[in-house]
């Protein structure tokens, strides 16, 4: 074989890499979500605390975007499965 490491070591490395990517991606999505909800909901600077309307908006924004992402994830997985099927058919 071409290495001294067992398959499980490689798996471990892959796992670690995936976890790191996952974390990094989560942090990025979180930041983007905050920016987005701020941008969409906050316009009143007569006070330094969020008013009721803004709070409600932020709550809805968070929920809605989370649900949007969830749905995109579902469709993405479906489309990707189709894509892979097509690739397999083409013998790639």
């Amino acid at each position, binding site marked *: 074989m071409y290495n001294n490491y067992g398959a499980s070591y490689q798996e471990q490395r*892959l796992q670690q890499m995936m976890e790191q990517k*996952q974390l990094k991606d989560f942090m990025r*999505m979180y930041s983007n979500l905050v920016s987005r909800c701020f941008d969409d909901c906050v316009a009143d600077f007569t006070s330094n605390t969020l008013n009721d309307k803004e709070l409600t908006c932020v709550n*809805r924004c968070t929920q809605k975007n989370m649900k*949007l992402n969830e749905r995109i994830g579902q469709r993405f*997985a479906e489309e*990707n499965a189709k*894509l892979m099927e097509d690739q*397999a058919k083409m013998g790639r």
Partner: protein
Amino acid sequence: MFGGVFGGGSQKPAGQMAPGGMGGGMGGGMGQAQMDPNAQLAAAEQEMEMVTDMFARLGDLCYRKCLIQRYSDEELTKAESVCTDRCVAKYFQVNREVSEKLAKLSQTN
């Protein structure tokens, strides 16, 4: 993992679904038996990077195009849901179209 799909309220990174669904993922076509493990890892990493990026773009694009009424409700409206489904489907189609055109162009060169 990638994609940032926030499973409603859970702590886990949203991308759980997408990557899970693609575990062996788009790399299915690679001849993994011939590749040295480091190259394999690098290839897997790159692919994951690409998928994450695609997912993020989808999130942004479909948000801009489909969430018009912000924010009347916590739930996605029926219109928004349908729009999202179509958004993803069309994005993938565009992806295929562009790939094909690019492949053709590079062949003629």
